[in-house]
C-alpha cells in the first residue's frame, strides 16, 4: 500500500462549501443496481457489463430476452434491465430455443459458465448450434466451478489445481479439457464463433467487438452465435487477486486460445466483393 501517501487528504475541520450531489453513479448500462456480491477480481461482472453495453449501444434492450444458467453470474439474473428468464444449470440453450421459436423478433442471449455449458449441459449448445438456432450463447469460462468453491470442470486445463484435482489436472485420471469454441465452430449451423478474454483492456475491447458481432449475426439470421469469454476466478484458482489476469493468460489462455474461429457474415461479405 505504498500509494497511500499520494492520496490527498480531505480537510474535515470545516463544513463542505456545497451540499453533496450525484456526479455519476458509474452504474453500467442495463444494470439495475451497481453492487454485486461476486469476489474481488472476478471477471464475470466485466463480461456481463460488456454484454449489457453491447445490447445498449445497438439499441436492442427492448427486444432482448436473456436466459441465465446457474453459476456465480446468476447474481446478475435479477439485476439487469433486460427481460430475464432463469434456466436450470446446463439447460439454457433449449430454454432459449423455446423462447426464440415463439418470439422470433426478439434478441435471445444465453449466459452460462463452463461448468453449466460444458460439464452439465454440453449437448444442449451442440444441438442448438447444429440446428442453427438463431440465438447468441455466451460462455463465461474460468475453468472451475467458482460458485461451489473451485472444483474441476470440463474446461479445466491440464495441471490446474482444483479441489477435485488437488495435484493438478492429470490426463490419466481426469481426462483432457474440452475446447468448446473449437467444437461449436465445426458445426454448420454456427454462424459466429469467437473466444476472448477480459484479463486486460485490450482483450476486453476484443470481447466487446465479438459480442457485438454475435448479436449482429443473430439479427441477420445467420445461425447460432457463440462467444466464449475467459474470465478470472482468483478465488477458485487459489491465486492473489492481482495475479489472476496473468494467471489467466499463462494457464487458461494458453490452452483455450483467443480468436475468431468463424464469422459467416464476414465470409458472405468477402464472397460478395
Amino acid at each position, binding site marked *: 500500500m505504498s500509494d497511500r501517501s499520494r492520496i490527498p487528504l480531505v480537510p474535515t475541520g470545516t463544513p463542505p462549501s456545497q451540499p453533496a450531489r450525484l456526479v455519476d453513479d458509474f452504474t453500467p448500462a*442495463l444494470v*439495475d*443496481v451497481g*453492487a*454485486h*456480491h461476486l469476489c474481488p477480481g472476478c471477471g464475470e461482472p466485466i463480461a456481463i457489463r460488456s454484454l449489457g453495453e453491447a*445490447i*445498449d449501444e445497438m439499441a436492442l*434492450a*427492448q*427486444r*432482448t*430476452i436473456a*436466459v441465465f444458467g446457474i453459476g456465480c453470474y*446468476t*447474481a446478475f*439474473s*435479477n*439485476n*439487469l*434491465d*433486460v*427481460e*430475464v*428468464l*432463469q*434456466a*436450470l444449470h446446463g*439447460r439454457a*440453450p*433449449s*430454454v*432459449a*430455443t*423455446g*423462447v*426464440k*421459436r*415463439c*418470439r*422470433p*423478433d*426478439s*434478441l435471445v442471449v444465453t449466459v452460462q459458465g463452463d461448468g453449466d455449458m460444458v460439464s452439465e449441459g454440453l*449437448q*444442449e449448445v451442440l*444441438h442448438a448450434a447444429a440446428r442453427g438456432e438463431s440465438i447468441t450463447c455466451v460462455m463465461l469460462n474460468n475453468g472451475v466451478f467458482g460458485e461451489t468453491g473451485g472444483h474441476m470442470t470440463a474446461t479445466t486445463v491440464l495441471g490446474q489445481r482444483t479441489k477435485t484435482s488437488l495435484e493438478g489436472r492429470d490426463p490419466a485420471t481426469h481426462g483432457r479439457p474440452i475446447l468448446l469454441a473449437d467444437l461449436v465452430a465445426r458445426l454448420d449451423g454456427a454462424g459466429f464463433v469467437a473466444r476472448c478474454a477480459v484479463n486486460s483492456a485490450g482483450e476486453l475491447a476484443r470481447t466487446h467487438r465479438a459480442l457485438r458481432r454475435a448479436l449482429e449475426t443473430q439479427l441477420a439470421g445467420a445461425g447460432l452465435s457463440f462467444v466464449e469469454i475467459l474470465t478470472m476466478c482468483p478465488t477458485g484458482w487459489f491465486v492473489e487477486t492481482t495475479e489472476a489476469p496473468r494467471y489467466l493468460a499463462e494457464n487458461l489462455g494458453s490452452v483455450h486460445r483467443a480468436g475468431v474461429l468463424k464469422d459467416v457474415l464476414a465470409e458472405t461479405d468477402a464472397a460478395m466483393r
Partner: protein
Amino acid sequence: MSAIAAPATTSVPGRHLLQGSEAIAEAMVAAGCRFFAGYPMTPFTEVLEEMAKKLPTVGGVCMNAESELEAIGMAWGAAATGTPSATGSTGQGLSLMQESLAEITLARLPLVVLNMARAQGDYWQATRGGGHGDYRHLVLAPVDVTEAVELVQRAFHLAEVWRNPVLVLGDYYLAHTARAVDITPVDYGPRPPRDWALSGATGGSGAAKLVSFLGSAKQGDGVGYDLAVHYAACADHTEAMLRGVPPEAEEGYVEDADVVVVAFGTPGAYVRAAVRSLRADGVRVGWVRPVTLVPFPSDIVAAAARRASVVAVFENNAGQMLDDVRLAVLGEAPVEFIGGLSLDASGFGIAPMLDVSEVRRRILDVVGRRP
C-alpha cells in the same frame, strides 16, 4: 410476429373417428396450444407425430427435441413467452424431465404435460413428482378418448388460471384406441392476463420482467434472491390451488354397495363394466373412479367407504393410488388391493389383466371374503 397470435383450431366440426393420440393432439390445438416439444417414445410417439403435423398449420411450432431434457427446456422457454405450450413423454422420459418440472412450477409458469404411460406405475411420479422442493402439479386421468378430449382442454385452462403445470396421465390404451369424438373447443371462461410473459419489450424501462424459479421480484435495493420469501409464496399458491380446484370422480352404485372398487384411468372402464355386470347378478358392489388425481377426491372416496364394508383398489401397478385411498378412508373400512402389475411381452402397458371377467373374479373374491 408471435406464435400466440394464431387463430383457433384445425379441427372440423362434428364427430370423427380418431385414434386417441390424434384426438389428444386435436384437443390441444383446440385449447390454443401453439408450442409442443417431445422426444419419441412408445406409447407417446404418435402424439408428437400428430403435433408435428398440426401445429405448423395454425402458426405454431413443434420441436422434435434431441432429448427429454431439451423437450422440457424448450417447452419452458415457450411457456415463458406466454405461448400456450405442452410437452410430454412416457414415464421414463418424464423421469428425465423432473428437475425442470419442479423448477417450472416454482417459476409459476403454465404448462401442460402428457404422460402416455406404460401401465400405471407412474401414479406416484405423477401425483408426488420425482422432482425436488415443495411443489405440486394438478393431475387429470381420463378413462377414455372422449374424456381425454375434454380433460386435455381443461388442462390448458387450469394451467393458465393457476400458472402451474397440469399433468394428463394416460396410457397405451388411451393413445391407441380409436373413438368417434367431437373436438369442439370448450369455453371454460376467462383466463387471467399474461402480464408476466416475456416479450423483451420491458427492457431498458427500469422494470424489466423476470421469470425465475428463484424469486418473482427483482431486489430493489440489493442483489441476489430471497429464497425463503419466494418458497413461502409458492407454498401459499400451491395450497390455494389445491383448495381452489374441485376434486372430481365418477361413481356408480355406491349408495348401497357393500364393496366399493376404486380405479383410475383405463382400468376404471373395466371396473365400471365389471361392477355393472355384477349388479345385474344382484351383487351389491359399486365403483369410484377419480378423474382428478391431484387434488384427490378424498371426500367422495370417504363418503362411499362409510357406507361400504370393504374398499377394494384396482390398479395396473403394485399398489400406488392405494396410499391415497387409505388416506381418504382413514380406517372407516378395510382397504384391499385387488390389482397388480400386468404387462404383455411388449412391455408397453397392454395388460392381460384388463378383462371384464378377470376383474369380476377379483371383485367377487373380495365379496366372498367379506365377514
